[in-house]
């Protein structure tokens, strides 16, 4: 797809955020907070960085994106629909019986590359894809968005060790560092300490950015291309619920039902941002 400029990308991320709201049926619990916090990152991947073609979704050379924090898949659904992987009209079927848009990512959905949801597994799946690329002498890259709370999973660090050991410079992790896990602030409930330092000790090349500043996101994604012989991680500082005033930094909206009025207010917030 044709690369977009920053202004265009910022407009698309608004559409993605509105798309997230489309997936949320009034009064039904949905993972709003983490979907909104990752919206700018996902926008940059699908509309700027990644080599992919909705008309040829099986192209072996395509870049891969795995949403390891699978509960935020609403963002990916909105982005895939915006790209044209499936009609926008089906966003409203999300999490309903028989829909291809399940509560967590499944490969039966066009554009979804791996099944995730039980946390901690996505980086390892990306690792397998990255090894596959090296074996096949293909140039595609594998991008994995991790939740910050998800970093408590031991498997992440197994994958971090292995990716570094095998020098997988085609594997890029992006941490949606919104500082909140499901029930509260990480700092208070389960402090993970120096996340960037941890990855550095595991042999990763690290970057740290504002995950809502499109220019910083694009720069980081481009800088990663220069890294050779090691995997990279982008620690993206984000705000949970970003763009929806009443949900920002509010753990109550990790997975919450919205009223009709709240949806209207959320849409107005996003459009006015």
């Amino acid at each position, binding site marked *: 797809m044709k690369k977009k400029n920053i202004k265009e990308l910022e407009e698309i991320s608004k559409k993605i955020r509105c798309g997230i709201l489309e997936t949320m049926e009034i009064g039904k619990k949905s993972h709003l907070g983490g979907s909104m916090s990752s919206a700018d990152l996902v926008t940059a991947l699908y509309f700027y960085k990644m080599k992919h073609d909705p008309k040829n979704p099986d192209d072996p050379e395509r870049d891969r994106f795995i949403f390891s924090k699978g509960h935020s898949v609403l963002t990916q659904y909105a982005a895939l629909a915006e790209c044209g992987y499936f009609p926008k009209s089906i966003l409203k079927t999300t999490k309903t019986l028989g829909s291809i848009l399940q509560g967590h990512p*499944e490969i039966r959905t066009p554009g979804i590359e791996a099944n995730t949801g039980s946390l901690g*597994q996505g980086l*390892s799946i*990306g690792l*397998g894809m990255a090894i596959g690329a090296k074996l096949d002498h293909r140039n595609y890259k*594998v991008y994995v968005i991790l939740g910050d709370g998800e970093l408590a999973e031991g*498997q992440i660090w197994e994958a971090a060790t292995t990716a570094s050991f095998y020098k997988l410079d085609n594997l890029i992790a992006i941490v949606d560092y919104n500082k909140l896990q499901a029930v509260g602030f990480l700092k208070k409930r389960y402090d993970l300490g120096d996340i960037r330092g941890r990855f550095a000790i595991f042999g990763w090349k690290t970057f740290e950015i504002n995950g809502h500043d499109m220019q910083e996101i694009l720069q980081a994604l481009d800088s990663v291309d220069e890294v050779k012989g090691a995997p990279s991680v982008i620690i993206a500082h984000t705000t949970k619920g970003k763009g929806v005033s009443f949900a920002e930094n509010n753990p109550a909206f990790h997975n919450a039902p919205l009223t009709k009025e709240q949806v209207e207010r959320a849409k107005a917030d996003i459009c006015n941002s």
Partner: protein
Amino acid sequence: MKQKENLREAYGKELLKCAKKNNRIIALDADLCGSTMSVYTEKEIPERFFEMGIAEQNMTSTAAGLALVGKIPFVHSFAVFAAGQAYNQIRQGIALPKLNVKIIGSSGGLSDFGDGATHQSVEDISIMRAIPNMVVIVPVDAVETRKVVRAVIKYNGPVYIRITRNDLVNVTNEEDPFEIGKIFKVAEGNDITVFACGIMVSQALEARKTLLEMGISARVVNVSTIKPLDMENVKKFAKDVRGVITAEENNIIGGLGGAISEALSEELIKIKKVGINDEFGQSANCYEDLINYYGLTPETIVNAAKSLLN
């Protein structure tokens, strides 16, 4: 008595043979390649062998990623770790999307006799069988092990294979057929049918000799594919006899005994389950000590047959 042959040796050598012909095959191991025998592939095709460290969860999800880009990964560990340590990685990452990953549960059952309960799998068959989309195979001998390796490469989907670490009697011949999802009669009889897997097939054949002397004729069926179960033939082999025995080196809950009982639950037939009676293993000086202690013997099968027919 036919000759004994080592199953993990047979497995490792066949994997190498197949990997030489098919470059989609990748071997992953978690520091047990010398036991699982994936070491043969490592030695000859190092570029398609990956040491994944003692980190089974990552190894299993990595295999999912490899399958998603067209590879045929074989994941190796001991059965307890392959099925237990990485259960949810198998469930979510492999079985749910029905990925082409082969999980090798080596040193299965009580076969790692010295290491004790932590290293002996008494429930791996039950666990794997409960996961939708999963194929579960317990090769009966080295001859069948080689056929299983070739068959699972042709099959596009997740498979769990339990391999014992010891020598077992060859009960099948090179020319005998093997097909995923089919059970095979290894001896005919018309009073009872013994559905067995793994080492228990040869134990059942021994029991059959004793039973014949007592005037009881036992059919022995090798159920190497526990799932999907060959329902048609299970029913057929149970129809013309007076009782059914299941025999397995696994917990009698949820394994082969569970599968056969479920399959025959609408039939009016008595079933006796021979296996590990809902308990863990323990260390022993040799495999035979455990086989005897847990009653995985021809005598137990003979007694089960007698009580069925009384």
